[in-house]
């Protein structure tokens, strides 16, 4: 029963904020990977051949249904020579790509059928059809959902601490262990998450309203 030590909290703040930079970096890069890979998976999922669509569907379903933590720890144990942060970003990106692919898919399905027919009537190549007609309309609709996944990825970056990426929770835990001040360090880390994620969610909600969802 030693209560909350404000001095320890003040002491831990610089370390936690230092870790926060790594947290942000992992979130931004992970989101980029997820956004690009997810789009590729969604387009592949609409390929004309079943030999492409069925495996894509199985793999994404498998990734979505299994824990991120196991994927992370497993990848880190298999690729011991790769830097933890790189593994973390790759696994986060691949995991979330399985989700964003579904988002893109819904966005693509949302493009009116007439647009596809018009492209065929104009005898555009498949590449032109995607590039100039379908994707610009689909991507605009899925932006809010992608943003929401970025926020949830942000809240899952603490998992990276397990594979020794020195992000915020890693630093908080280290400080806690060194100074017997887990209470202060974890409370601080939680508050930083709240302060960073709440305004972002508000912003995303506004964006959703503006785009008419």
């Amino acid at each position: 029963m030693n209560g909350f030590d404000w001095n320890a909290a003040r002491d831990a703040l610089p370390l936690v904020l230092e870790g926060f930079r790594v947290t942000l970096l992992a979130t931004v890069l992970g989101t980029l990977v997820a956004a690009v890979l997810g789009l590729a998976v969604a387009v592949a999922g609409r390929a004309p051949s079943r030999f492409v669509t069925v495996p894509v569907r199985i793999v994404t379903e498998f990734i979505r249904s299994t824990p991120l933590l196991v994927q992370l720890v497993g990848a880190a144990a298999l690729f011991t020579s790769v830097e933890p942060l790189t593994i973390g970003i790759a696994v986060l990106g691949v995991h979330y790509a399985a989700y964003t692919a579904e988002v893109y898919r819904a966005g693509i399905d949302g493009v009116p059928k007439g647009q596809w027919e018009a492209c065929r009537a104009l005898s555009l190549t498949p590449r032109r059809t995607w590039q100039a007609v379908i994707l610009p309309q689909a991507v605009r609709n899925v932006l809010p959902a992608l943003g929401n996944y970025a926020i949830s990825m942000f809240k899952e970056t603490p998992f990276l601490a397990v594979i020794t990426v020195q992000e915020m929770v890693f630093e908080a835990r280290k400080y806690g262990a060194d100074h017997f001040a887990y209470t202060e360090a974890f409370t601080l880390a939680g508050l930083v998450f709240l302060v960073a994620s709440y305004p972002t969610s508000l912003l995303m909600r506004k964006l959703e309203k503006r785009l008419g969802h």
Partner: protein
Amino acid sequence: MSDFLSAFVDDLPQLRSGLWVTLQATVLGALLALLLSFVLGLMSVSRLLVTRGVSRVVVEFFRGTSLYIQLFWLYYAMPPLTGYELTPLLCGVVAFGLNYGAYGSEVVRGAISSVPRAQYEAAVALNMTPLYRMRKVIIPQAWVQMIPSFTNLLIQLLKCTPLLWLISAADLMTVIQQLRDRTGETLTAYLTLLVAYFVLAYALTLLMNLLERSAKRRLGLPTGAGSLLRSRSATEAVASAAGGAR
């Protein structure tokens, strides 16, 4: 590979107890989350500003601070602060329940407000009390709409249970990690673990499909036989993303 297999067979009792811990954390956490979802969700459609406000603050707090931190806070930070110590499994149940309860309350709120306005009006016209109206008219209709989103949340909760390994509860992940350390079969061990979680997730999805079917039947809605085996669909994943329900 054969090393792993024989160790796997030798360790069956431990594996079973690990699976049991994982299942307990999932089911108890989900029950707590369900309870909180309804309490917070119903509070958020209340006419009183204070009730709505309290629910809003609680929900935003638990959604905003990351499950990981909540779990660690309960395990590491609460004992020195309050003098109470929870067992690792209980820490997991409480953290999962609070976190997913906050997400679930949004599901409840959304489903209740999507019940057609005319249903409220009809219930009022029939002179039903507010409680009776909720219980007999609004909730049964909203419930059908909640189930797909709840299924998603349940699977996400299941996927968070490996966190128990970090606070030294002997869950499925802990046991299989020990197996891996003993046999050195990294790839086999983690693939086994992933497949185990996949099977659990699919089994839970099938159970929820059954639940959805019976809820639909009670309302006299059509229930296709194919709906039983289907996995979680794209539109639901998107809907839950849009609601921020993760």
